[in-house]
């Protein structure tokens, strides 16, 4: 376990956003966090990224408690991409991606060749080389999202935490991002923690699924194991059936919509 949350509880005023959350992550694995709106996915990701301090419990990265990490060192080890982040609108794609090198540079240090290579690699991986000089304002939603992912990639951290990176994207771009994530884990050994709404995408991409409901972790295990529990139907209050044409394929939940 390189990253581990133990018994983490976080409240916002009287509302308990996360209640006794425990989950650990191994190198190169992809874990999808799913759950209804307001179930605590974002809060859990913020705690794992060291952005929100738990009142109870602890988050440990590489054997050290999160609050002992310096921001700069943490950013070299772990990158986090929030939902719908704001960027100054006069920035170009490449300028945004270059910000990912912030933690690697001293105040007077110029861009070294390793920094340029990281930026180049991030742009290539997200298919943005052609758009590098384009202003962020001029991009489509999908392109902008890819630019943000590229900025997170340029950090070259071993752990990538993504909060709903595929929301607001058309299906083609959603698949593109999911494929990028599996490639990162397979080829670079990056650990990915991703909050995602599409259950089938979650089951298709993840080694492990964590299901949250009202701030509590109600299931943790493989997609195949999840499909036998019936928890998806009860948690999301839907009816459907699992389809699995081949044992090698990920389970697929076909939801029934009444009309």
């Amino acid at each position, binding site marked *: 376990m390189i990253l581990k949350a133990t018994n983490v509880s976080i409240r916002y005023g009287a509302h308990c956003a996360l209640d006794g959350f425990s989950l650990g992550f191994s190198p190169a694995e992809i874990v999808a966090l799913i759950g209804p709106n307001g179930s605590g996915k974002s809060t859990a990701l*913020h705690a794992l*990224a060291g*952005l929100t301090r738990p009142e109870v419990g602890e988050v440990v990265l590489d054997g050290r408690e999160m609050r002992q990490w*310096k*921001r*700069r060192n*943490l*950013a*070299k080890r772990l*990158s*986090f*991409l*929030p939902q719908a*982040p*704001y*960027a*100054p609108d*006069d*920035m*170009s794609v*490449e*300028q945004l991606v*270059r*910000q*990912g090198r*912030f*933690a690697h*540079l001293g*105040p*007077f240090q*110029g*861009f070294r060749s390793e920094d*340029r290579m990281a*930026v*180049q690699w991030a742009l290539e991986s997200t298919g943005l*080389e052609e758009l*590098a*000089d384009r*202003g962020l304002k001029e991009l489509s939603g999908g392109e902008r999202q890819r630019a943000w992912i590229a*900025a*997170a990639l340029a*950090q070259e951290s071993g752990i990538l935490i993504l909060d709903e990176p595929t929301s607001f994207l058309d299906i083609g771009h959603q698949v593109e991002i999911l494929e990028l994530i599996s490639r990162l884990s397979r080829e670079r050994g990056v650990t990915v923690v991703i909050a995602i709404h599409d259950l089938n995408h979650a089951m298709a991409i993840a080694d492990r699924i964590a299901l949250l409901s009202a701030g509590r972790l109600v299931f943790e295990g493989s997609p195949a194991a999840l499909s036998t529990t019936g928890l998806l139907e009860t948690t999301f209050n839907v009816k459907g059936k699992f389809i699995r044409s081949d044992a090698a394929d990920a389970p697929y939940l076909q939801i029934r919509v009444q009309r």
Partner: protein
Amino acid sequence: MTFGTPTSGRLGRGLVAPLTLSAALLIAAVFLGVVDLPAADILAVLAGRGSDDADLVIGTIRIPRILTGILAGAHFAVAGLLLQAITRNPLADPTILGISQGATLTVTIFLLFAVYGSGADAHTLYSLPLHWLPLVACAGGMLTGLLVYYLAMRNRLSVLRLTLSGIAIGATLHALAMGLIAGWGSSRFEIVMQWLSGSLYARSWEHVVFLLPFTFAAAVALPLLHRSIDMLRFEEDVARSFGLSYRLHFSLVLLTACGLAASAVGTVGPLIFVGLVVPHLAHFLAGRSFGMVMPLTVVLGASLVTGADLAGRLLGQAEEIPIGVITALTGAPVLLFLLRRRS
């Protein structure tokens, strides 16, 4: 493929026009004035062998006045740039932290006490301890800025709360100052009004010396902070995930802005629009070369104030038009033009 870093050549070229303009303004400001001196006399003063009269006009009156304008203009403009960046609010300027209003109130109170405390009448204005004004105003502005900062930092840093507390505190202090001035009445409040509209009238070497430590402190701090300033333009979560110690750097940049603004307000009064317009103009001219924004802001801020002062001196002759009036009158159309270009 380029990597967005402007080469030093590009940096230099973008600065040529503004630097030429400011040099021209500087020369004009030295050579033109209410007292008409022949150019030959002025050159003699600059060469160190001018007549006593010319020495007085140029060395004791004009040059310190111009230097004060250059420094104060740069202070206002850079403070505005920093505040706009870290509050992510394009309308931010030194008034948004209540700095100008705090300085105004302390100046008003100080003059009230000075006038009544010394038992002087309206005709002895010149015996007032006016040399204390910069220090008093600067302290008032600084204190207000720190109060607003404290309110925003309680519990958890919030940029929105910083802006809202700044506006609320600023409005309250402004109302108090206006109430005092209205209640005070009499001819003495003229001096407060004069201070309020911002002026370089009778600014001397003392004022230059007062501003310089702040200029030097910022000149050391800002290059060290330049990457953090770019990073502070993002939201807190994003900046922190990129590796910025957000609270620390936010505080350092805010403190720098506060010192620059308060010292400038202290010496020349609240010059509205300089801190607001100049950063926008600099962004407009720099485009995506972010490295250019800060140098352009410095040069344009200094030029705007020097130019406005020169215009005020020449247009009004002996009855100088207050510089704040000129900066507001010229600044507003520039801002409107930039807004049109943006949309």
